[in-house]
Structures are given as structure tokens and as C-alpha cells.
């Protein structure tokens, strides 16, 4: 894999993982409020 390939892969994986973790944290934090 060339350098551009690595940059594309690491950027995409990093962005997707960070967004997924962020969303799940928000969902878990929002849930107790919704239950009140």
C-alpha cells in the first residue's frame, strides 16, 4: 500500500471510530435523562 493509501485508510478509520464512540457516549448519557 502506498503513502496516500495509508493516509486515506488511517483518516477514514480514525474518523469513523471517533464518531462512533462519540455517538455511543452521547446516546448513553442521553438515556438516563430520557428515562426521568
Amino acid at each position, binding site marked *: *500500500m502506498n503513502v*496516500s493509501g495509508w493516509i486515506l485508510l488511517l483518516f477514514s478509520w480514525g474518523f469513523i*471510530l471517533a464518531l462512533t464512540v462519540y455517538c455511543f457516549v452521547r*446516546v448513553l448519557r442521553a438515556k438516563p435523562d430520557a428515562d426521568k
Partner: protein
Amino acid sequence: MLNIAVIYFGIKGGIARLCNWAMPLLFICGTILLVRVLTLGAPANPDWSVAKGFGFLWNPNFAALKNAHVWLEAAGQIFFTLSVGIGVILTYASYLTKADDVVLSGLTSTATNELAEVIIGGSIVIPAAFVFLGPLAMDSVARSGTFNLGFVTMPLVLLQLPLAALLGFVWFLLLFLAGITSSVSLAQPAVAFLEDEFDITRKKAVGIFAVVTFFLCQPAIFFLKNGVVDELDFWGGTFFLVVFATIEVLLFAWVFGMEDAWDEIHHGADLRVPRIYKFIIKYITPPFLFAILGTWLWQEWLPIIRMDTVAAADRPYILATRAGLILLFATLAVLVGLAWRRKRLAAQEEQTP
């Protein structure tokens, strides 16, 4: 049969219950296969490593961007996986309450979907096939179609590994879970349409759906080798998704109105969508999708319509598939027309003293 049973039990009792255990299981299966592929090394040839397999997917090829087919496939892929343009997400959205947070739900399902398809899905089949079949075979593997990739190439690749039977089981379980969770969602709009618009009971609506889909599925099974599934996949899973998504975005931004839509989106939402998306949805997305469709039509419609790339023996099957799709679309249009008429008559009756 399983599809029908799940649909019969409804959204909460069927689809939600199925997804609650099927989705985590799908992620577990995907992660097992991902770890196995990442630790493959280069068992067949020192030059055919996993890293080079990833290169086949990730090394940018800017020349491909000139091909409208690439853009159409990419747009179709993202619309299909997010259930946009097929009525699925609209049907699910109709079950939400005003207070439900559509921004966070939408962003979470999009992120999780990308995790499943880009990180997990994109790291299994192509890199594994590259490791065992090498770079020369990859072009034909990638072009062999969705069905071949999952049901022919991948089992052949898994056979080369220790614990092939176990990994094969995990792979087919993953395909089964991905398939059934999608197909119940795809069935729900049709069943809900029959129930809501024609006042049919759920039992009867599911029965009608079961009989119709049973007959409609047969060509895909018996004429698979003639390219019927790939033809259905192209029109139903790519081209018309982009067409319908374009219509949806026009209705959303220009008919429903962006200001009303913006209020509706943020009702009960914890997160705010950046305001720039108001401009993007209204002024960028529709021309962008029109440009994709227009360029594709300009570049490819004639060879596709003339079936230039289809073998002569398969042409009658492809033609029959297209005729079947037109007939299906016409039937659905008639049913929608009838439903509108029923609604109009019901509204008139209500107004009459």
C-alpha cells in the same frame, strides 16, 4: 419463512427483537473474521501480503473519478446501506414520536453503519482474496459481482485456512444476519402500506406479501447464473435508489420547505446540525445528484440499454428481468393511485354533512 414470521410479529415484537440479538452477533462475527484476516501474513506468496491487499482497496486511483459509473455505484451504495430512497427509513421514521432525537439517532446509525461496512466489511473479503489469489486475479474477483464475492470467492479463500469449517460458519452466519436484518426492513414498508392504506389486517397483509414475494423471488434463484441478481441489484439497489433519493431530497428541501424541515429535525434533539447543512441540502445535494445521474446517462445509458456487456445467451433473461421490473413499478404506481383515491373519497365523505 423467517422473514415473514419476523414481520408478522411487528416492529417491536419482531424486527426490534431480532435486531437486538442479531446486530451484536453480526459485529462479533465480523470482528472474529477481521482479526483473522489482519493476522494472515502472506501464506501463499511473500509478495501477496495483507497490507498489499489493503492497498488494492485504499490506494487512490484518481482516473476512476472520471467514470460516472463509479459515482453512481458509490451514491447507490451509501443510500442502500442507510436505507434512503427505498422507503425504509421513511417507514421507520413514521413510528417515532415528536420528542425522539432524530439527529443523534441518525448520526449514530450512520457511524455504526460505516464502522460495519468500511472498517469491518472492507477489511475481510478483498484483503483475504488478495492474500490467496494474488493481484492478477483481483480485477476479475472485484468484477465478479456481489453474489460471487460472498458465496464463491470467500468460501474458497476460507478453505485455505486452518479451522476452515468454523470460519466458514462464522462467515455465513454473518451473511445470514446481515441479510435477514436488511430484508425484514425492506419488507416492512410494503406490509405497512397494505395495512395503513387498504385497511387490511396485519395477518392478511403479511400473507399477501409472502405469496407475492415467493413468486417474485423465483427468477433470482433459478436464473442466477444468467445474471438476473446482478441486474436486479443494479436497477433496484443502485440506479433507482439514486433517482428516488434525488426526488426525496427535492421534496424535503423544496416542497416541505427547509425552514419547516429544520424545525422538525431539531424537535427533541440534543445535538444541533451545523447550519451550513441547510445550504448543502437545498442547493448542493440536488444538483450534485442530478450531475451524477446526468453524467452516467450520457456516458453509459446506450451500452446498458443495448446490453453490450451481456452474453448473447443471457440477453433474454436480462430483458425479461427489466420487463418484470417495469411491470412491478407500474403495479405499485397503480396501488399508490388507488390509495390516494381512497383517501380523497374518505376525506370527502367526512366533509359531507
